[in-house]
């Protein structure tokens, strides 16, 4: 018998690990959390997220992708087991800690000083929340054209400007900030990378309402905000390079979790929706066209999961290609969108009456139309699908660059 996809060929130690995680999930995934988190207030969301993070941390499951010496050390295969079991048990996702455990950690590990790592990595484990302050109104896809400035003033920098799409800024303790330190240099050589304490005077955070009706994205206005020079990450004016280095790395880790979530929660719910009798009494699943679509999705999810695992393994081995992360991000986000689209279509009018989804849930929550609309949060931010295709064509395939005006 040919083994099913490689990620399922579990050696016995992984089998044991899976049993451990499964047992842990049964004992610790809060009952009825979805109901409690539907329509939850900001305060309820934050306290629930922090409690769940602490629970995962006690079990050693909060930051499996970190190096062993900082509290992680799981292989890609083990992480897949962990994430698949969490998804299979409909566990809440770490929405609030997402930037802290992925983006912030990856940046500190790759480019931070020892002091910065010691200051923040243990703090993140204790619940420190981070936000990313990269995009601006006029610097979206063209991030390098950002105009927020950081002026050197003695042992500090004074920052002024506006950031946009800062997810969760209202709850954040710290911010990963890109600001221009040399306006005379070519645009990618005049940017610096900072760690900004969100309690610093001069920061004004305003939530923006999104297409789904939620408001986790924020505008951040920075007015003469003082950042000590010790909070610079990497050399001055090398912020773009630091960001490039860490963006891809962090993307691989997040994709592993999201792929397992899509496979073990998203796909399962889609099958369940199709197995539910419709208004006429028939199950959509009994229609061979529906069954065919589901089989296509299952196949695609299997491909995505294997692709995510390979990305993490190649990243750990230092052999990742320049477009590998873009391939996974593009494929994940568009597959998510197509699956949620299909869920909306199959679930019919009833899906339109689901006006709210549980906060703390995954990108797939079972509220199909809301999830479909929410899927643009994956095809637009973090480099749009159009930008990913350009990266894949140019950096991955070596095709000539598009002519770019300045």
């Amino acid at each position: 018998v040919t083994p099913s996809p490689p990620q399922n060929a579990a050696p016995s130690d992984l089998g044991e690990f899976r049993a451990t995680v499964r047992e842990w999930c049964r004992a610790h995934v809060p009952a009825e959390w979805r109901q409690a988190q539907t329509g939850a207030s900001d305060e309820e969301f934050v306290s629930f997220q922090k409690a769940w993070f602490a629970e995962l941390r006690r079990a050693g499951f909060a930051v499996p992708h970190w190096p062993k010496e900082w509290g992680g050390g799981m292989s890609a295969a083990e992480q897949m087991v962990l994430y698949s079991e969490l998804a299979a048990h409909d566990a809440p996702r770490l929405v609030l800690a997402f930037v802290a455990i992925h983006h912030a950690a990856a940046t500190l590990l790759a480019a931070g000083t020892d002091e910065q790592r010691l200051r923040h990595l243990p703090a993140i484990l204790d619940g420190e929340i981070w936000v990313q302050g990269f995009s601006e109104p006029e610097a979206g896809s063209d991030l390098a054209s950002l105009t927020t400035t950081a002026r050197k003033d003695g042992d500090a920098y004074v920052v002024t400007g506006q950031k946009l799409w800062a997810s969760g800024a209202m709850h954040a303790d710290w911010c990963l900030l890109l600001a221009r330190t040399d306006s005379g240099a070519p645009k990618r050589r005049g940017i610096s990378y900072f760690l900004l304490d969100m309690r610093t005077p001069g920061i004004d955070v305003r939530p923006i309402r999104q297409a789904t009706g939620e408001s986790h994205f924020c505008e951040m206005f920075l007015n003469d905000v003082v950042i000590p020079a010790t909070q610079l990450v990497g050399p001055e004016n090398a912020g773009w390079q630091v960001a490039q280095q860490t963006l891809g790395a962090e993307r691989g880790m997040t994709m592993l979790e999201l792929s397992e979530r899509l496979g073990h929660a998203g796909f399962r719910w889609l099958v369940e929706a199709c197995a539910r009798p419709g208004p006429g009494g028939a199950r959509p699943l009994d229609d061979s066209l529906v069954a065919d679509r589901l089989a296509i999705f299952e196949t695609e999810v299997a491909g995505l999961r294997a692709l995510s695992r390979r990305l993490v393994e190649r990243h750990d081995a230092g052999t990742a290609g320049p477009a590998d992360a873009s391939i996974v991000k593009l494929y994940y986000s568009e597959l998510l969108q197509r699956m949620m689209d299909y869920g909306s279509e199959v679930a019919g009018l009833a899906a339109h009456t689901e006006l709210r989804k549980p906060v703390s849930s995954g990108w797939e929550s079972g509220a199909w139309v809301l999830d479909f609309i929410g899927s643009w949060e994956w095809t637009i931010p973090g480099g749009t699908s159009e930008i990913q295709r350009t990266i894949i064509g140019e950096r991955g395939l070596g095709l000539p660059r598009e002519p770019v005006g300045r």
Partner: protein
Amino acid sequence: MSSDFAEVHDELRVVARDLLGKAGSGAGINWRLLAESGWLGLEAPAALDGADATFAEVAVVLEEMGRAAVRSSYLGAVVLGVGTLNLLERTPGRDELLRDTAAGAVVPAVALARGGDDIAPGEAPFRIERSPRGLRLHGEAAFVPDAPDAGRLLLLARDPGDTPVIVDVEPQAGGIGRTVQPVLDATRRFGLVTADGAEVPEASVRRFAGDPQACIRRLLDRAAVAVACDSLGLSEAMLDATVAYAGVRKQFGRPIGSFQAVKHACADMLVQVSVSRQLVSAAVQSLAGDGADTCVAASMAKSYACAAAVDIAGKAMQLHGGIGYTWEGGVHVYLKRAALNRSLFGSPAAHRKRLASRYGVPPGSTVSPAGLTAR
């Protein structure tokens, strides 16, 4: 179609675009304004203060309503209400209701099916039962368009002799229940209508003027094509908005519309809009002219235009970038409406299934594919 008609349509379109555009997307529209414009009674006979026009004129208004993503009871009151009244036997009561509807004095809603996604006549949602105290109405219909705001309910019911009839009731009547069914698309209103032993006076029972099944089928086709018109209009609005945005939003020192990734996506949207327009026009003409293959044209228009509209509004959200994903940006209003339209009065898959049921049936065969020929 004569050029006279085309001119009339162009004029109607200009007026509608202006009037509905002023309301702004997602906004409600003053019903009196629609009545004064003559859009409620387009298909009502002149003798009842109507315009003696056809569904082709209604379709122009519907498309513009989709373009403006307007909130109104036009689907319930005109597409279904006037459409139903026109197919009923002429009685003083029916004439009075049609006249009042055309004048905007009464806003009816119609329940033809148990859910909002049927494409062919099925079991009537309501039934009239004899009781010692006279006739009583029982049943339930979900997703009845514009029922929450309606002043009159026209409910499809099976009479004691098993003939489908329309029961004309006041929403406040005893035994009649009406519950709002809120949906994500804030521009649409649906209601769950229930009847639990409501009294049915003889005068409230209205009979179809022709074969009831053929009439119901026609009404469902009307509804499907009306939704397709709406989707066509909203697709055009999304294409226009995206082209305008791509022309002014600059990244990398030039308008994003100058990048092929964006330009080609817009081109694909136009191709889809162009095909939608042809299929919708064919279905509208078939309905307006009592064409023979209305079911086929309706299914093609509904399945294609409503699926395309979701793609187009989705692409509009994508190409508007972050702004497209904000509430303020307004693209979500169109995406939600497009997604709802796709499910309303038959999913694309259901309509394609109806089309496919014709394949392989030998010419002259007595086999009648589901929902296609009169039974």
